């Protein structure tokens, strides 16, 4: 039995989930300018991109890569096994497309076979693998 009472529910605090964490980290990277600089450099040319990807395979590069890996690790659902599957699929798919789609006489094919592009693709695959491994780290 009673008169109307008021109640103000304590603002329900929804725990930030993995995806929210991902957003925060991306935002920080973006705000710090680190990501921007890398990408601006990457924009210059494919040669520069290959160079940068090569640099990524250094100690300082790996550190940055680990940062990125943290982002993906924060997703929680991406494990190394899944990522490797995707990587294999990517490689398989690229290989398949090379043979099926790109006409043999086109310039693009030549460029595809050029050493810097090959190295770039190889580094990209390595990068994905590193991301996958890092996502398994208990620290992530």
């Amino acid at each position, binding site marked *: *039995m*009673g*008169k*109307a*009472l*008021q*109640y103000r*529910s304590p*603002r*329900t*605090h*929804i725990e930030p*989930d*993995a*995806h*929210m964490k*991902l*957003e925060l980290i*991306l*935002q920080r990277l*973006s705000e710090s300018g680190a*990501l*921007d600089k890398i*990408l*601006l450099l*990457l*924009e210059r*040319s*494919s040669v520069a*991109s290959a160079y940068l990807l090569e640099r990524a395979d250094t100690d300082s590069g790996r550190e940055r890569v680990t940062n990125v890996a943290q982002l*993906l690790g924060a*997703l929680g*659902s*991406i494990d190394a096994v*899944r*990522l490797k599957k*995707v*990587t294999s*699929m*990517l490689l398989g*798919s*690229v290989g398949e*497309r*090379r043979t*099926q*789609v*790109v*006409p043999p006489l*086109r*310039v*693009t*094919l030549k*460029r*595809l076979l*050029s050493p810097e*592009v090959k190295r*770039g*693709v190889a580094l990209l695959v390595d990068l994905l693998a590193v991301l996958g491994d890092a996502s398994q780290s208990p620290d992530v």
Partner: protein
Amino acid sequence: MAKDITVTVDGVEFTANEGENLVSFLRRIDVYLPSICFNDILGPIKTCDTCFVVIDDQLQRACDYRLCGSERIKVNDSHAAEAREEGMQRILENHDLYCTVCENNNGNCIVHNTFSAMEISELEYPHRTKGFEVDSSHPFYRYDPDQCILCGRCVEACQNLQVNETLSIDWSQSQPRVLWDGGVPAGSSSCVGCGHCVTVCPCNALMEKSMLGEAGLLTSISAEVKKPLISLTKALEPAVGISAILSLSEAEARLREHQIRRTKTVCTYCGVGCSFEMWTKGRKILKVEPTPEGPANQISTCVKGKFGWDYVNSEERLTQPLIRRGDHFVEASWEEALGFVAKKIAEIKDHSGPDALGFISSSKCTNEESYLMQKLARQVVGTNNVDNCSRYCQSPATMGLFRTVGVGGDSGSISDIASADMVLIIGSNTAESHPVIATRVKRAHKLFGQKLAVVDLRRHEMAERADLFISPKPGTDLVLLSAVTKYLIDNDLYAKSFVEENTLGFDQYVKSLEPFSLDYASEVCGLDISSIISLAEMISSSSSLAVLWAMGVTQHQRGSDTSTAISNLLLVTGNYAKKGCGAYPLRGHNNVQGASDFGSMPNNLPGYQSVDDQEVRERFEAAWGVELPKTKGLDNHEMVDAIYEGKLRGLYLIGEDMGLVDSNASFVHGAFEKLDLFVVQDIFFSDTAAYADVILPASPSLEKEGTFTNTERRIQKINQVLSPLGQSRPDWQIICDLASALGAKWNYETPAEIMDEAAMLTPIFAGVSYDHLEGFSSLQWPVAKDGTDTPVLFLDGFGFEDKKARLWPLVYEGVSEEPDDEYDLHLNNGRLLEHFHEGNMTYKTQGIKERTPSTFVEVSTELAKERGVKDGSLVRLVSRRGAVKVRAVVTDRVQGKQLYMPMNSSSNEQAINVLTSSHTDVATHTPAYKELAVKMEVLEKEGRSPLPRNNFRYGKRTPYPGVMVEKKWLRSDYVAPPVRRKKEVR
């Protein structure tokens, strides 16, 4: 049934249906053909030029071809392939491919998938900007002209499926783009936010804002960073090939599958029963994606179902039980709260008997929860005092149908409404209250010649579109309907043989119609005789009639009788027991049908099995192991009276803001204050909860499993999308926990087990089981034991033992409250499109709140002139029960001394039910909300309009037949593929 024909596709013979669309046919036989603009529901649009095939040596668009037999179709033809590639190349001139960082890269992007499947290795025409800014003015979606391929799907959906007629493409402009109201920002247009355009967009030109930055692994990167990343990829494109880049984006799309969950569920707003996939990332709702498999709605939604879900993650959600201690509420554990409730229930039952307790279930809850609520009342406590909120809306319609045809549900399906030759809408603002059903009527009316008549007080959208709009005096629909029926009989324009073969009581019924002459109806209804005859003749000249009605009929003192008059009319005209016709009381809440179906009613056990039927009781008693109460219990309205009389001491109320939505709110509040135990179970601290002794935090539909039954008796499964927030629990679990605290041993582990028990005890649900409800599968009751359901009722006779319908004689006895010298205005009330009911869910969605921040009162232009009222004037509306202060909107939607006030209110100072009376429908006790006389005092002449200027009601629609692709073909820069465009033309 279409005739089988034989056609040849690339040299192989196939059987097809005569008249079948070629694209649909090729999809059915699994032959891949690109077709970007074609959509099975929208039909051919013919803009994308990617579906060329050769038919009997002629190059043709497959989307625009219907099979007639013996065709030789070549898909795998170089000429056709060349034309298709040219079409695709032109599309990519309008669409920048940056799939890996695109929110639409989710494996279902039609442009991406078509491009990928066509294996194009080089872009012929570079992407070019159209020179327009991205339009982000709409609260729920944004349009990026530079990504728009001008396929016109969105236009077709807006013009001819939703039929809001906002979107168009002006092909005469030097640079065409999609236009809103001919060229205003989307957010200031007539767009109602239904989301059809976004759903059908084949790329990312139209995107839900909730997806932006959220959908992909890399989409949250800021635009400043994203741009160089896209440029880099473009720079790499010639080197690595487009296919490698596509592979990367496809890999990224696969990765998204791990972070985005897609869960099928059913909308929790109105009774249409729209189903869709809910895309979520963690607790974040990314989007609602309707699919063609949705049995009630296919790809259609309204603004609430598509975008109105912010309430689920609202910070205002209740997450812990609360107990009243002195003058405040304190948080409690579940054990403590349930223990307290059980103890008090036991005390009241011991002291005053089981009938001193009442139980009110919710039409927001699932069928299983409604079943458990009535079981708790009957088996555990021992009372039939159990009801649900259909008492506030739909009980009169159910009564009218039970009286005449013996089954209280829509007689057909939504598809039957769409295929009817004529639709008559009475007392229903369908375009706002049941928007998706309205789309079916609007489409059939616009495209397929369906006749539309509307009987209503207000000139709402359906009235504006109608071939015949009749506006009788409030509360006189029964007279109009009876006069129309009498006219048809008197002039031998009725279905004589149907009446003779299928009905009883014709002679007595005809005698009862004697008073309803045209002259009498004209005088009582305030109508010209010619308009009554026009309606009758429109009906008699139609091959089939579907009647849609809602609260404008039911919420009257004679709501049951008027519903009965509708059913009488349908019987006399033979509009039952076949497809494309029938009775459609439009159920207001998502599960208002199911709440009654599953037994939360004082007079019926589940499946409308009467509590006074001994055989029925014995069946339930055997299953439940108790003796059940034998006489009808109290309904909601009677419970309030019983509280005042001291007979009802405890009330357990689930998911209903009864203190705001029951009529004569102050009287209801007074009753709450007298209760010894008031338990409110809800997701928010409602106005009703303020009076509670115990508040139990429940979970909304997205946080639980179960089933809902829509207006067409369709049972659909909802799946759990999110975990319950905080300590909230699904209602079925709370009821089980309370039953346990009261000593019952139910032991249900899943809602499926509850449904199995209900099906076992209820003949109309005999074949209902979760096995038959997976995915988008559904069942329309009655469902036979073998799982056969019933989309159309009465094909094997009406719902009485002798299978005959009853013509029910009626008399007209006026209304409960009419304007007089003091209370000189009639105040009509109801819903708005964008708010649901009192608005406790929809006010949590910012985009809705911004555009429609509060309730208001609509005042006619003539009354406004007479009283000096303007848009924004502050007025006080005073009834015999109370007063509210609201701002005015001057409009010709209402006429003369009619006012209209939406029932949503951001505060109870503006709640319509402060004004309404305790008068009810005589037969069912549904409040006569619509019989309300008020006086209006102008407090401030000047003020800000309660409807912001960017509300869609101020938009100017631009009706067109559709995309009008022929105008595109007439452009000087268009040449039909495979001819390539000249470079200079670009």
